[in-house]
């Protein structure tokens, strides 16, 4: 019996009868990570077939043995022992002996191994509950911290890093104009088009203007802008802070005497509160513009009549309340995104999951807050 694997990584396995019924196995060539599989298969085959009470591994012909090969030798020795076949190794060179020596698990002392017990369902439930309450604690702490810092910056506006505020206003606001604009125009056009299909049947084409403007200013403008802001900037905030946390930059800031919330979060929150209402207003205007295009091109409305109708259907209160609402969205998105960034622990993956949860919780909070506003505004009026 002989097997060889490829040219350049030759390995051979020969068996012959030896004295007193034992079988002599000549192993030669290269026994390494490349040939270990073939060797294991050969030994398994031999152990299945043989009836010999003892095997002698002759390692004289081994040219190269690496630790994987040595492990394969030892494992086949143990496997044979389980079938009560005794294995003896002969013809070891000094190098082979050394290699087997450092690989053999029985050769070194068994240092104590930390054992992990698998948690049962009750323990796991407790664990989840504890983690949940921890998370609530952290959120409360963060909200308190942030509120205190914001209040402090109202009292002492000089303590705010205004250049950072401007930087984030540019990042989150100005650079977001194209995408927010594009989506709002398209949204306005789609709404006007879909509405016109229905309203045309009643000859109420003019009311397309009212529908588009009310829907956009009261609901869709703020919500669309907020969701885009969460995806564009909330994720960036949380990834930035998360990476700083992982790289111990936040610890460095604290030891240098900076309050991390003050230093990192306050500028972002202020910039967001300033910039999101402007973005919302811009989205409203472009949405109405989109509706206007469709109105003129598809429904024979004049620019003047469309704008007149828009003006009549909106009130100042609607615009102001929607801008206030978008301010709340901005504070929530920036705050929760930064909060998730601070929770990142570990490595690259933690930053990724912090960013994901930042965007998910932002969108969730947007919807919740929007429903709250819908009810409140209904009763206020």
């Amino acid at each position: 019996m002989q097997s060889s694997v490829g040219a350049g990584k030759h390995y051979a396995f020969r068996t012959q009868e030896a004295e007193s019924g034992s079988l002599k196995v000549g192993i030669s060539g290269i026994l390494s990570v490349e040939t270990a599989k073939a060797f294991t298969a050969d030994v398994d085959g031999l152990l299945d077939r043989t009836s010999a009470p003892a095997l002698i591994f002759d390692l004289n012909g081994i040219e190269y043995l690496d630790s994987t090969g040595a492990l394969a030798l030892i494992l086949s020795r143990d496997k044979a022992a389980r079938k009560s076949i005794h294995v003896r190794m002969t013809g070891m060179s000094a190098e082979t002996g050394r290699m087997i020596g450092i690989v053999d698990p029985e050769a070194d002392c068994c240092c104590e191994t930390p054992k992990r017990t698998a948690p049962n369902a009750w323990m796991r439930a407790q664990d989840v509950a504890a983690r949940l309450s921890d998370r609530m604690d952290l959120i409360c702490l963060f909200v308190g911290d942030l509120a205190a810092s914001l209040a402090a910056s109202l009292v002492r506006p000089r303590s705010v890093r205004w250049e950072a505020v401007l930087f984030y206003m540019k990042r989150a606001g100005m650079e977001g104009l194209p995408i927010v604009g594009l989506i709002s125009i398209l949204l306005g056009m789609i709404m006007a088009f879909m509405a016109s299909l229905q309203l045309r049947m009643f000859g109420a084409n003019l009311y397309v203007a009212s529908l588009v403007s009310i829907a956009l200013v009261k609901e869709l403008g703020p919500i669309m802008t907020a969701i885009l802001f969460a995806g564009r900037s909330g994720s960036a905030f949380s990834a930035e802070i998360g990476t700083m946390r992982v790289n111990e930059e936040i610890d460095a800031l604290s030891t240098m005497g900076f309050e991390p919330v003050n230093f990192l979060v306050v500028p972002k929150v202020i910039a967001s509160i300033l910039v999101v209402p402007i973005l919302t207003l811009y989205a409203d205007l472009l949405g109405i513009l989109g509706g206007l295009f469709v109105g003129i091109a598809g429904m024979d409305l004049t620019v003047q009549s469309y704008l007149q109708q828009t003006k009549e259907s909106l009130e100042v209160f609607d615009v102001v309340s929607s801008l206030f609402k978008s301010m709340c969205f901005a504070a929530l998105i920036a705050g929760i995104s930064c909060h998730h960034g601070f929770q990142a622990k570990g490595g690259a993956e933690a930053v990724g999951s912090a960013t994901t949860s930042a965007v998910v919780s932002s969108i969730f909070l947007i919807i919740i807050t929007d429903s709250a506003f819908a009810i409140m505004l209904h009763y206020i009026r």
Partner: protein
Amino acid sequence: MRGSGQPVIDIQGISAYYRDHRVLEDVSLRVFRGEIFVVVGESGCGKSTLLKCMTGLYRPDQGRVLIQDTDLISADDEALLQVKRRFGVLFQSGALIGSMTLAENIALPLTEHTDLDPGFIDEIVRMKLRLVNLAGYEDAFPSELSGGMKKRAGIARALALDPQILFLDELSAGLDPVTSAGLDQLVKDINAGMGTTMVIVSHELNSIMTIADRIIMLDKRARGIIAEGDPRKISENASDPRVHRFFNRIPPKGF
């Protein structure tokens, strides 16, 4: 067998530039089978660049890098992959993949590059962890380990495919003397037991004196090698002031 035979790494006249800043100029060196070869020098002298040239992460602008007779610069992708399987690299920070347990980290190259059975791979993983004295930490995540343990786990991963050459970047940087001495011992044991050729970048004088068979010293201004040989001899009879300063920890004038 130490320091004899044909070289496993043969670098012939390489030069490396970053933009218009020359880091290495016409550097040649040889590393022989089974030796522990240490690259020393002050920060910014091109140690890491040299290591990157040897591991194929950076292509030098001139010269040849031969690893066991394969030229890293002219080799095609297939040949490059073959060479890369023959060496292991320990990165400065360990560079373990944070989302995987230690066992998964070490098994990664094995499952990717070999067709061994999963059961046998588990045995190999346990054996490698035992080699670096981390038995029992199979299910631990890298973030749960101390600095020294991360280094040792990194060595275990570098050893996964039984490389003939091991590159170790900043082996003992940022570790306490005891841990660092333990790592030195580990490197010596692996070298003695498995005959692995070691190329180490290091700053730690104590560690260099204990483990190195041969060192080269690079210099920023010379952009190349200013000393080569047995570290004990070099430190005793250093005539070059730069070498003398390094081994006696004397800052340069005007520092």
